[in-house]
């Protein structure tokens, strides 16, 4: 399963400045593992010490907030768009 991942500005140091990268994986967890292979260091920014999504990270698979879905187990269909976004905006 190949997906497109939108990278927020604060993580672009890991992607050579690229705002979008491709990754493989059938679930969000697998996508993040694949991202880490090609962009070392990115997983530690998105996941905490227990391997869970950090509380100030929002991740969307297509238009769905994964917290309403199955978190890291959320299925990432072929061609899906994954967005990683800082959660501290708004209000």
């Amino acid at each position, binding site marked *: 399963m190949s997906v497109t991942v939108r*990278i*927020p500005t*604060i993580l672009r140091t890991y992607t050579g400045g690229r705002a979008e990268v491709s990754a493989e994986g059938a679930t969000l967890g697998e996508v993040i593992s694949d991202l880490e292979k090609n962009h070392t260091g990115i997983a530690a920014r998105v996941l905490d010490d227990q391997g869970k999504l950090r509380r100030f990270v929002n991740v969307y698979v297509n238009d769905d907030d994964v917290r309403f879905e199955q978190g890291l187990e959320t299925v990432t269909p072929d061609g899906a768009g994954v967005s990683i*976004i800082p959660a501290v*905006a*708004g*209000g």
Partner: protein
Amino acid sequence: MAVQTVASSTDSTVDLGPAAALSCRECGHRVPLGPFFACEECFGPLEIAYDFSAYDTEELRRRIEAGPASIWRYAPLLPVPADVAGKPNLNPGWTRLVQADRLARELGVDAGKLFVKDDSGNPTHSFKDRVVAQALEAARAFGFTTLSCSSTGNLAGAVGAAAARAGLRSCVFIPHDLEQGKVVMAAVYGGELVGIEGNYDDVNRFCSELIGDPAGEGWGFVNVNLRPYYAEGSKTLAYEICEQLGWELPDQIVVPVASGSQLTKVDKGLQELIGLGLVEDKPYKIFGAQAEGCSPVSTAFKAGHDVVRPQKPDTIAKSLAIGNPADGPYVLDIARRTGGAVEDVTDEQVVDAIKLLARTEGIFAETAGGVTVGVTRKLVEAGALDPAKTTVVLNTGDGLKTLDAVAGTGLTATIRPTLDSFREAGL
């Protein structure tokens, strides 16, 4: 919590008064002042760290009291240049603190103990003018030429007006189905107003993505990339309340909760006043107020959780309809630390509370004000709020913006222009 200070500014090219750096609230990672909002280490929210070390308490108090009748009397405690009051902005704040004895009687609070901080008196009729004024100075400092935001309505108007006054372009984003009053009050200032097909959380997500795109380059999003500066404006509510109470802390404050930013900054403001010696330290309780139809924080509070599970909003209190509140975890921390609570009320209770405040104190609140008054009533009835202690309830916006909420209110009678008709109507 101690007042956060650092020895010196890390970016000498930016003049934002006592603001010295940005510091992550989660992990403490520090970066120079700039248009950044999330920590590059842990995604935590960045906050302003100040250098207040040079202030003498009594000299500072005199300086504040001699200052303008606006938030700029507190410029020494805000991330703004010292000459901010002379720049074109809306000069918000110093709104009235109303001793609400008639409301107190209805709620079962002791006479002389209940106050309403009425922020409907700001230039665009909500507390948002306070926060936008800070963001405007940051936008100037960082050279932005377009002011933008994601908004539930009130912020859109505040940004449009501030940009108009400052001569900046504005382009703001709102959910497409907002109350008509808020749409008109945002559009009239002449900036671009864009409806997004979705709720506030969708709008917020869109703006967060736009910031990282070349299309959003040069844009200052007041509540995204300028959020650390913007949020500090809510501290002025705490400053004003204490000064208006004669430089005393209130015992209890009831604050509406949308993103949770306002409540966390009210607490920060109180802590700063204590740290600076401007008020005597004593315990205070902060209560958060939500509408039941969008109550992710009160739900978490009641369940004893320290994380907030997002909700899909469905309430007439649209200015509080943020289902994924960024500062929700901090609201939980503060409510628990101070011995307060986070409570919610139904839409029906919101409408009843709007009418109650209007008929007892002559204050027409928007739905968020109905939420705080309604929650205050519920807290008193539950014994969570002490009726003998000084309590301040925030009204953050003007009822004229949410007329639909009280749409059933209207004429008592229609009569012919004769005395007979008047008598027949039983008036």
